[in-house]
């Protein structure tokens, strides 16, 4: 058994990380904190998950979120999508394995993956609205958020949601407030089967290896760890029975990366765009220096007068 989640400290505890530990800050140039803290990770073992939604309930409770009571929509996935008040969501997929013709009920806990190279942060125009700590946690700082929704466009996993109430972006924080005082994220603490484990990224990767070996022994020959390199790896990882087909797990991207469109938008466009604008302005100034003003001459006025007959009046 993986060691169980620790109980909360009784005495007040100094936060283990904070502003001094940032390695990225949206729309800001900072010197990444050094040395880096040990990278943390949450490991979601889909093969152990029973879809009980304790994680969802714990998330709502810990973060004091008020999700609406919806309706039944022909699936156990409730609410039907992530919302500003649902940072995490169990997504249920009924998948018939074409190789065995057996039904598999794939249950994936969706939520922020805490990418090493976070697309949301890259897209964010508001200085300090999205930060990444040196332990890998990507956090939204709501007082700096302007609600533009660029993070939604930057995210390769379709995670952030903008609140209609305060027009700010919300997503899983990896319970940075809990982790800062040595606690596991609320979802991991609540998980009854340790389908969600938490620790250092190295520990989680190693733990996953054991799980993958077990799954392979049970006939899941493509079992594997989902830690996509396209985003530099993630700080939320999945153990999947069918790691060769992540898309069957309610559309988990096969090879997620920050969209090239976003890269162009936040990269070359920014520089080339201002280049063009600058060029246009400079061209004007230069032209004026070289060509001088285009003035109307007295002759022109005379011609006009002549044409209109003003000279005769």
């Amino acid at each position: 058994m993986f060691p169980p989640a620790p109980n909360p400290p009784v005495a007040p505890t100094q936060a283990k990380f904070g502003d001094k530990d940032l390695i990225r800050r949206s729309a800001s140039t900072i010197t990444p904190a050094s040395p880096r803290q040990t990278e943390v990770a949450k490991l979601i073992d889909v093969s152990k998950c029973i879809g009980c939604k304790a994680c969802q309930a714990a998330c709502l409770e810990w973060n004091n979120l008020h999700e609406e009571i919806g309706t039944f929509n022909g699936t156990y996935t409730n609410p039907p999508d992530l919302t500003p008040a649902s940072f995490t969501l169990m997504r249920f997929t009924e998948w018939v394995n074409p190789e065995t013709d057996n039904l598999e009920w794939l249950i994936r806990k969706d939520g922020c993956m805490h990418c090493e190279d976070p697309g949301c942060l890259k897209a964010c125009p508001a200085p300090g609205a999205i930060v990444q700590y040196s332990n890998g946690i990507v956090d939204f700082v709501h007082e700096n958020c302007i609600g533009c929704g660029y993070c939604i466009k930057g995210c390769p996993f379709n995670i952030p949601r903008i609140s209609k109430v305060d027009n700010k972006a919300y997503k899983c924080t990896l319970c940075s407030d809990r982790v800062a005082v040595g606690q596991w994220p609320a979802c991991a603490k609540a998980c009854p089967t340790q389908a969600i484990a938490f620790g250092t990224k190295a520990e989680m990767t190693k733990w996953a290896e054991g799980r993958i070996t077990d799954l392979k022994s049970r006939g899941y020959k493509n079992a594997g760890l989902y830690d996509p390199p396209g985003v530099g790896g993630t700080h939320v990882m999945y153990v999947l029975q069918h790691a060769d087909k992540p898309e069957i797990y309610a559309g988990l991207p096969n090879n997620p990366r920050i969209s090239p469109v976003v890269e162009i938008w936040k990269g070359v466009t920014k520089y080339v765009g201002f280049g063009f604008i600058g060029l246009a302005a400079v061209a004007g100034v230069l032209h004026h220096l070289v060509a001088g003003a285009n003035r109307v001459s007295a002759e022109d006025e005379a011609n006009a007068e002549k044409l209109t007959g003003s000279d005769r009046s």
Partner: protein
Amino acid sequence: MTNSWTDIKNTDLVVIMGGNAAEAHPCGFKWVTEAKATRGAKLVVVDPRFTRSAAVADYYAPVRQGSDIAFLNGVINYCIQNNKVQWEYVKNFTNANYLVKDGFTYQDGLFTGYDAEKRDYNRSTWDYQIGPDGYAMVDDTLQNPRCVWNLLKEHVSIYTPDMVSRITGTPKDKFLKVCEMIGECSSPTKTMTSMYALGWTQHSKGSQNIRTMAMLQLILGNIGVRGGGMNALRGHSNIQGLTDIGLMSNLIPGYLTLATEREPDLATYMSTRGFKPLRPNQMSYWQNYKKFFVSFQKAMFGPAATAENSFAYDWLPKMDVPSYDILRAFELMKQGKMTAYFCQGFNPLQAFPNKAKLAEALGKLKLLVIMDPLETETARFWENHGIYNEADPAKIQTEVIQLPSTCFAEDEGALVNSGRWLQWHWPGGSPPGEAKSDVWIMSQITLRLRALYQKEGGAFPDPILNLTWNYKDPNEPTPSELAKEMNGYVVSDVADPNDPTKKLLEAGKQLSGFGVLRDDGSTACGNWIYSGSFTEAGNMMARRDNSDPGDTGAYSNWSFSWPANRRILYNRASADINGKPWDDTRKLLWWDGAKWTGYDIPDIAPASKPQDVGPFIMNPEGVSRLFARGMMREGPFPVHYEPFESPVANAIAPKVRGNPVARVFKDDFAQFAEVASPDFPYAATSYRLTEHFHYWTKNNHVNSVLQPEFFVEISEELAKEKGITNGGWVRVWSKRGSVLAKAYATKRIRPMTVDGKTVHIVGIPIHWGFVGAAKKGFGANVLTPFVGDANIETPEYKAFCVNIEASTGPAVA
């Protein structure tokens, strides 16, 4: 549970059938994932639906609801035919070698002695041949055709894989695959655990469902061993405590039974209860019955219970019927014979079958008292909630009194979990508003009733006036005071017979365990099986030492496990006849040459020689029973009976409808759909969902978010056939009522082929009602039939028949 939740980690094969542990017991299910992860255990799920448990299973086989006995008898037949039997165990620890009376036979679904008029058996032939020495006769060679083993072999022989598939709808190859996986566990070094719950109990033959698996487990040698056992997963956090403490109409604490009206005195009462051993050297623990009973009476009536008045035997009620179970209670209510009803911590309008009948019955009461922390449908049965509760308040004269009570998290006390652990807990918050603890409320009722009797007298004041009430604050006894009383204490000094100067027991001290109980009135004990839980050493239930020497999963210093802090029942069976553990890697107890030793408390006397005393000490045989004698009303061997409402006739006994000995009230029989009724062609079942706890959590916002609205589950095939869209509205109706629900057309339910006929399944979760935070909806009990298990009257919620059609949904106001 014979074992404990933590012990499940020791298993090699988990069979979840008649339950859905991942869905309904997610916290305990961690021990299944633990067994899978660390032991490489396999998980098999057999269920009509592909459940959340099936989602993490290694193998899933569908089975039609209500056909479990056919399936399991088929597995037993497979094991016998393929020599998948733990022979040493069967020969030494079961009654396989016992000879059965010659008059006992089985034919066409019925055993000897059936009386169709009474719906009951004369069970006199269902017993052993008794030899001249007064003991049961045995044949250790198993050659005698009248020995239990040969009768069993014959009995299950009709349950061939083809017949099983024909009855259950399980494809033959899947059935055989499950047989193969289970059969492997006949090895002494491989164990299987059975995890079941209401999927087996809520049938008109629920007890026999469980018994069939217990027999299979005995044949495989899996009872009393680590990672084995029959593990009933209890649904409420303290429902195990409820049965332990005897909150049934016919029980008193510790599984002692109330007297019947044919037992006018203590001697007659005791004559059928203190079983004499049926084999030499056996403990037959019920021989101590009188000690438990007298000590209970002393706890109840203190000095007023004396040897002279047979320890106040007359002050206990005597039963005129087998039981006043819930179904009978509501029948009596409906007949106007029961006029006041106290409803403490439950919600019968949602929880019992046939809501229309329940509402009618409640409307005939003069007084209904509700003690509950929550607003319940029962408390509001008289209120009109449109289609969800079409009551007419003007026509209901029942006076309803709601007494708000505290919730578990606001109380101190012990909860008994499925593994029989009494875990003490402390309040996490203060009760809101006027809420009072159940103890306070009941104390007030008791004290005020007593005052009335003192003032006004009454027909029979003795039991009320003589009830002991020695609490520091009579208005509200503390949980510790009550727990100490249940553990028991010494009433008067008992001298050591060998040295009269010494005291064996000293008056006023807490008892160390039920071993010291006496039948002379010198000890008092509220519940003998809890004795040892609150001793002179303190509150054993409050222990929180989670060390586990040997990594056995026993956790013996965590809380208290009844009986006697024993973690695995029948644990002597974990070793062979010579006291050597079956599996060296999974040792539990062993004979060290002089005594039994190991990781658990032996259930036989530590010095009893291995070859002498059998492990099943509660049976006068000392062994377990493959042949149940007269203990089960349907018969000594399990037989497949169809549910009372079934889409097909019984393939093995076409003339037998339902369980032939189940009690059915006259009016209710008229409300059953005919067998294979074209009006109600679909096989329905009801069940729970992880997101909710019964009818409580719909009062909670978060739970209501996670599963907001009533729905029913059907196969994609049936949806297509009936023009039902996924997520659209449907109407579902049985002969008793009609509901509107959202439809979930799912791949997790598939049509089955039963007896050559396609049977569609309709799944109905139970969690919605007309009060609470979630969307208003119907309870599944609007549809379910009013019939219970033949032995213990658990209602048949799991198998009934309905019809279904697409609907436009409720009219929008």
